[in-house]
């Protein structure tokens, strides 16, 4: 079936809500200047509740979600989102709590934030954590602001940030947004960053190095301690992109490796739902030297009472505010629920099984697909399309063919250091049978690439749409509905 846009059906005067009547004696026009008033908004839909329900129910089934199948997007950590957490986040005491409620009416929420902060500090090996950033990239921005504030306090904000070529795009973007020039560092033939590369680039103008560990090849940066020493020796700081924290849970801690600051992605490591693109939550954990600069608010415990510090006077060196309120609290609830259900053993098992799953996929596929780096993998593994190129089948084709097999494709064409990268992160919540099914699908596609490349290139045929024309979308952007709109 086809489902029109909300704006393309309905009938004048229909509604999907049941509202109390407006008080009779008040007319906005008596108070607000006519020029500032509008009538009903032309173009808004007019639909019954059933029509809305059908619309979104029908739309939903055009999506692949973790709940419908395997979702091995590398660097995205698409693990199961517990339904318990959804129920807990909806408890009226959380969902209906106003951010400006007096602290005596918000003690439960504050206690939860306080406990989650401490747990995140412990898990990554740091001294303090702020929960306020909205997502991973926001956490990076926060971390770089802390680094800038730290250097400014020493009299010189410095100019540059070192970033390896395997980094997520957010790393250079966050640096630029924070006024730092980016120096890209080449990783070695083993997929790792080498101390000599860092030593060569490091000088007194470098504010920090940003390192993802394990990196986006799934490889542990085993020189991290030495690299940190090199950077620290010149007064620089070491920033950790925590997107891949899932690999280390309970096994190793960035704070024990020389990192000064790291951001979490609760929507990756702690299973808060990705929601089709957000919301996320990007807490930032720091060593004591950076703690005075943390953004507000800060949760403090005084006796048995919790309180939010929001006044700069109490934290004069703070970088200030990053959000209109305290952060994505509903995500804190979900993440804390997971930590509480797991306990220390469960958290460690999470990291171990994530690494086991990735290594299993690697072992099963390494004879079929090219492995550009032989180095050991942790939580994810990167292949490429080298073996399939002869038949003219590319990574894009392999991805689309996987769709027809009922799997979400891995992350493709990233990291940039691998040409035609196929980046697979299974996560710990997937069973061996699911991985076996995925492996079988990948092998079947590799086989078909040899025997019938055209069929692979015609994929996907099963979903509601075939390959979409992205060039057309960008060349003549149609970014909203307008009356009479036709896209053919």
């Amino acid at each position, binding site marked *: 079936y086809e489902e029109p*846009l909300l704006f393309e059906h309905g009938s004048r005067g229909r509604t*999907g809500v049941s509202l109390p009547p407006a*008080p009779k004696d*008040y007319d*906005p026009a008596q108070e*607000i200047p006519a020029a*500032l*008033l509008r009538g009903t*908004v*032309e173009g*808004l*839909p007019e639909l019954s509740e059933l029509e*809305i329900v059908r619309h979104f129910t029908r739309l939903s089934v*055009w*999506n692949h979600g973790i709940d419908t199948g395997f979702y091995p997007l590398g660097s995205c950590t698409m693990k199961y989102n*517990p339904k*318990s957490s959804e129920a807990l986040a909806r408890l009226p*005491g*959380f969902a209906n*709590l*106003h951010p400006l409620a007096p602290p005596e*009416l918000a003690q*439960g929420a504050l*206690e939860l934030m306080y406990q989650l902060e401490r747990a995140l500090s412990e*898990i990554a090996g740091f001294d303090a954590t702020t929960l306020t950033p*909205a*997502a991973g990239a926001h956490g990076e*921005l926060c971390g770089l602001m802390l680094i800038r504030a730290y250097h400014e306090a020493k009299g010189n904000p410095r100019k540059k940030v070192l970033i390896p070529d395997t980094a997520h795009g*957010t790393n*250079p973007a*966050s*640096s630029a*947004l924070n006024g730092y020039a980016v120096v890209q560092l080449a990783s070695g033939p083993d997929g790792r960053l080498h101390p000599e590369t860092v030593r060569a680039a490091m000088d007194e103008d470098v504010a920090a190095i940003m390192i993802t560990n394990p990196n986006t090849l799934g490889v542990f940066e*085993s020189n991290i301690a030495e690299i940190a020493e090199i950077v620290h020796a010149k007064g620089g700081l070491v920033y950790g992109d925590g997107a891949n924290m899932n690999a280390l849970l309970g*096994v190793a*801690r960035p704070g024990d490796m020389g990192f000064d600051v790291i951001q979490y992605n609760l929507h990756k490591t702690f299973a808060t739902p*990705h929601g*089709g693109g957000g919301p996320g939550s990007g807490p930032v954990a720091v060593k004591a030297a950076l703690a005075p600069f943390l953004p507000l608010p800060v949760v403090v415990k005084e006796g048995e009472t919790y309180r939010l510090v929001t006044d700069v006077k109490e934290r004069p060196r703070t970088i200030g505010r990053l*959000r209109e*309120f305290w952060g994505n609290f509903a995500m804190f609830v979900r993440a804390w*629920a997971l930590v*509480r259900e*797991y*306990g220390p053993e469960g958290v*460690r098992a999470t990291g171990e099984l994530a690494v086991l799953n990735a290594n299993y996929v690697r*072992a099963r596929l390494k004879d079929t697909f090219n492995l550009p780096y032989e180095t*050991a993998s942790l939580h994810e593994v990167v292949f490429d399309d080298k073996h399939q190129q002869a038949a003219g089948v590319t990574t894009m084709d392999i991805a689309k063919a996987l769709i027809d097999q009922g799997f979400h494709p891995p992350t493709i064409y990233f990291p940039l250091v691998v040409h035609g990268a196929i980046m697979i992160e299974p996560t*710990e919540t997937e069973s*061996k049978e699911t991985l076996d099914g995925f492996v079988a699908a990948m092998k079947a596609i590799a086989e078909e690439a040899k025997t019938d490349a055209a069929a692979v290139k015609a994929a996907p045929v099963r979903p509601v*749409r075939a390959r*979409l*024309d*992205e060039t057309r979308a*960008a060349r003549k*952007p149609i*970014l909203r*509905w307008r009356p009479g*709109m036709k*896209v*053919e």
Partner: protein
Amino acid sequence: MRYHPHTPEDIRAMLDAIGAKSVPELFDSIPEKLRLGRALDLPPALDEIALFAEFGRLAGRNETAHPPFVGAGAYPHHVPPVVDQLLLRGEFFTAYTPYQPEISQGTLQALFEWQTFVCLLTGMDVSNASMYDGATATAEAALMAARITGRKKIVVSAALHPEYRKVLATYLRSTRDEIVTVPFGSDGRTDLAALEKAVGADTACVLLGYPNFLGVVDALPEAAAIAKKAGALTVSVTAEAVALGLLQAPGALGADVAVGTFQSFGNPLSFGGPFPGFFATREANVRQMPGRICGATTDKQGRRGFVLTLSTREQHIRREKATSNICTNSGLCALASTIHLGLLGRNGLAELARLNHGRARMLRDAMKRSGFGTVFTGPVFNEQVFDVGDAEAVVARLAKKGLVAGAPLGRWYPDHPRAKGALLCVATELHGPELIELFAQAVRS
């Protein structure tokens, strides 16, 4: 462990396939001295029943019998249960960013609808697929204005949400753009004479709350005219988007950028987040917009479909040259707003906005009967500032009764002559006549 499917047999078989003897062996690439070597110091595991008991305890400490009388950037509204029941469909909430459009048409079409709603309500040409929240959207708007104009000075009304202004300051700290704050008058509107003085050839943009933090419908058309004359952009900031069902669209009043949050549509308060930030602007600025954008196109068979587009603005393509570093946004919150706006529709939105305005009037009358007047004279939507004598004392006293009374303005404007008594209060469709009466009585006694 219900989330870990691995049985001992599974693990053994997988290790065999890998050629490893044990799971710890898989971590050999981590130098021994960098490993933790002890259990994490976390509270012990809880079974699901204990988990619900513990979270019930925490949530119970925040429960109140009545909806809060405070807005100030986060608004208590009724969310029809149908919104949440649709949001809970796993295909929506467990999906990632729709980078594979063929199996993400549900999310993509909903985002296209979100963008359309944002454009219709703000009177703008284009919208992105959402921002973190209103404050960061405001900061991004200022950065965009600076990029577009090549100018450094950001002029902002003191009546713009103070926390939005703080976030703006945090964002601009590294770029060394200058922020100039313009005062507001006794009507609660931005002082236009002061604005005129502050805006010049060096000004990138003027930022105004609409309605502003004092609940007042600010002088957006006049401010936009002043900005336009100087070649600066006007940024309209709306935290209470229900107002856009009653008030003229910012785009129709001369704003070049409209930002804020649609939290009021379909999103619970949740102690302040997550909320769906929105960002809309004129067609000409589309390639300078931050964040993801969904666009319409066709598939190989010529059928209409949707994709994320114009991604050459974004970090995963442009890295340090991107318009913003934003990646994950507020997709699910935007979906909630889209569903709620779909339910409201043309008449529902207008009714809801009029109802909110009426309830605020009802509150004003009730407070008047209790002996409390308002502080500012300008027109308001659903929020207004009352003079209650000692605002902090009232808040503390009502908290004892389980009532969340309002926001004492003195926290943000300590130097305002009437700061001590000023209490910012909201009334929405959730505040019925009896509750409003109860509140006005409670403030007095």
